[in-house]
């Protein structure tokens, strides 16, 4: 706190006679979460913008080094809390790479559905909040209508609406419920029309276009320098999508396009997200059509794969399996030595997990690469020269979440 206050003073002393310092956040209606910006204003124009982060720091990386791999799954829910399922998937795949196993095909297909639902949900909130910050309140509540449907489905899948903790190392916590298929199919069928509705309010709305086109332009160089990923990078025209570049979870089986923008302004970021939602529905549709049967979790055989859970039936009937189960969830799975990095195409960009193991049951080092952290840094480059009102457009279009930025 004292550091942050010092900064305020520094700006105040540093500034010219005719500018004012304005503190925006951490509790401001449009710095969603706890982002804080210290602005130097010349009238309505922003001369300097200093983002201050860390108000939501919970030491996720350190926590990850003090828990076994399995115990850490619930902590990943609370990173990008707008797409908890996607975080679960990212973490599970990273762990599987470290352990050296792969999830069975059905689990992979389920995970694709989870990740894409998370993407839609996150983009919906991003779009809604973006529109709300520019004054179009109705879009926000309309997107919540669909998010509600998604949350109900998440609840049916994982048992929780928000803190899903759904994946396990080697698969998923439970099978994809059969009765969800018709619901999901209905959702996938109707959702594109809903997107049309949002677009009807915004895409060709004169005011919306005026507020977003040519505003907050991020050049390709800036985007690459600051390590932007996901929709923010693609809006600049760089076709960088981990689902295409390094397909995981069987993404190479599905046919989808990667929308890219041209100028990297707020309008492009909006269009890219809208198009991504449509593509995500396409992916879910294909997964539903081709959902493989088989196990949803890689079970341990009698002597191999000691790092994954044994079958529940065996746990209840077989002493060794019971011990094995107990061991998996307490602490003595012996991890192989080595280090892995896995980057997952999360809704907001590349969510990467780096894990290093020196044996034992816990990661010796865990490092998380959050996309919002990178996107927020670019603010100090992009914001100066814009008006105060443009900050809302830029923040909204960058679509950050502090939970994953501060970790």
């Amino acid at each position, binding site marked *: 706190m004292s550091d942050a206050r010092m900064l305020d003073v520094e700006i105040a002393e540093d500034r010219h006679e005719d500018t004012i310092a*304005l503190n925006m956040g951490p509790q401001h*209606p449009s710095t969603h979460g706890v982002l804080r910006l210290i602005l130097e204003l010349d009238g*309505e124009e922003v001369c300097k913008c200093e983002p201050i982060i860390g108000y939501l720091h919970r030491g996720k990386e350190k926590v990850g080094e003090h828990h076994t791999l399995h115990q850490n799954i619930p902590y990943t829910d609370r990173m990008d809390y707008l797409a908890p399922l996607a975080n679960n998937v990212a973490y599970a795949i990273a762990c599987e790479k470290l352990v050296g196993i792969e999830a069975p095909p059905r689990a992979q297909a389920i995970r694709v559905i989870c990740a894409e639902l998370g993407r839609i949900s996150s983009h919906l909130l991003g779009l809604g909040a973006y529109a709300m910050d*520019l*004054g179009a309140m*109705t879009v926000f509540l*309309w997107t919540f209508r669909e998010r509600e449907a998604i949350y109900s489905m998440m609840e049916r899948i994982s048992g929780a609406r928000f803190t899903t903790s759904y994946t396990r190392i080697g698969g998923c916590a439970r099978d994809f419920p059969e009765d969800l298929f018709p619901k999901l199919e209905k959702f996938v069928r109707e959702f594109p029309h809903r997107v049309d509705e949002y677009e009807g309010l915004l895409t060709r709305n004169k*005011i919306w276009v005026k*507020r977003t086109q040519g505003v907050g332009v991020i050049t390709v160089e800036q985007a690459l320098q600051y390590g932007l990923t996901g929709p923010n990078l693609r809006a600049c025209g760089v076709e960088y999508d981990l689902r295409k570049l390094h397909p995981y979870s069987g993404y190479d089986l599905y046919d989808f396009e990667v929308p890219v923008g041209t100028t990297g302004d707020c309008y492009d970021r909006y269009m890219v997200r809208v198009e991504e939602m449509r593509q995500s529905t396409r992916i879910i549709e294909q997964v539903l059509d081709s959902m493989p049967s088989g196990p949803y979790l890689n079970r341990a055989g009698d002597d191999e794969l000691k790092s994954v859970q044994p079958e529940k039936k065996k746990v209840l009937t077989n002493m060794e399996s019971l011990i094995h189960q107990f061991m998996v969830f307490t602490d003595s799975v012996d991890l192989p030595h080595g280090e892995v990095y896995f980057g997952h195409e999360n809704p907001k960009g590349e969510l990467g997990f780096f894990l290093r193991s020196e044996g034992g049951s816990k990661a010796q080092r865990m490092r998380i690469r959050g996309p919002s952290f990178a996107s927020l840094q670019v603010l100090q480059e992009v914001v100066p020269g814009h008006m105060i*009102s443009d900050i809302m457009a830029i923040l909204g279009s960058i679509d950050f979440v502090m939970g994953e930025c501060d970790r």
Partner: protein
Amino acid sequence: MNETVFYFATTLGKIVVFTHLALILAALMVLGERRISAVMQSRLGPNRVGYGGLLQPIADALKFFFKEDVVPGQVEKVLYILAPAITVIPALLTIAVIPFGPALTIFGTEVPLVIADLDIGILFVFAIASLGVYGVVLAGWASNSRYPLLGGVRSSAQMISYELVLGLSVIGIFMSTGSLRLLDVVAAQQDGVWFAFSQPLGFLLFVICAFAETNRLPFDTPEAETELVAGYHTEYSSMKFAMFFMGEYTAMFVFAALISTLFLGGWDIPFVTAEQLAAWGNWGSLLGFVSFFTKCLCFMFFYIWVRWTIPRFRFDQTMALGWKVGIPAGVANIVATAFILLPPGTL
């Protein structure tokens, strides 16, 4: 009965009835806004207090009264307390010259349904309404805090710019009627067509200004919630905040009433002539009153409809629209009207 006493009695009656009408309508408008926006956003809105939430405004008002009245330490006390009043009073004063309907006949005397039948009617409205901006500016300044200051600055710039457009947009009407008296304007529309049709450009400009002057979306930059927290009333709480709210909604009603009077024929009912209406006596007056109110309510609905549909302009875009589009268009409207009104063969 003494004529003077009768005059005072009826005038007092009109003042009480019309101002309360405006205030009650402002309160109901808040409820209406919440319910209608809820429908637009697939929600329910407040529907618990009273039948369908009808008593919600009373509940809100009670809540405002019982809230702690926080006066932050850094404010300029006198102006800070005065500012909300300065916002409400002009809004209520303008109601004085708005004709609510055709004259009533009470005890054989004609009583026009307007509190003060001024010859300079519309000028009075503009003169008083522009005082309202002081409330906003002083609130922004007296709060001695940065967000309200920005809101106050935006507001003063915006309201002053749009007042010019507002003034220009109605000149066409007064060129056609030859009078600033609002009763004459209504009479002219009863005889001819509504000015919304004969002065389409003026009508459009006036509607835009109505939004800008009342700080409604898409021109609500002075209090833009997501930018300036709450703009000029960020530091206000309790009843002082409620007064800003009241002032805003009353101003909205005044503008709806002005639009009905100036452009939508006032109490005129389509296809019914003034003589026919007069022939029905007091019932005719009542019918005219209902017609006038229906038009006001329709425009109020339009206010709400727009607010929940489109995004907000950026402040410089608002100003550009006012100065670069509004004022030239207003002048063009005056010139065009002048040419049309020119007696044939003059040129």
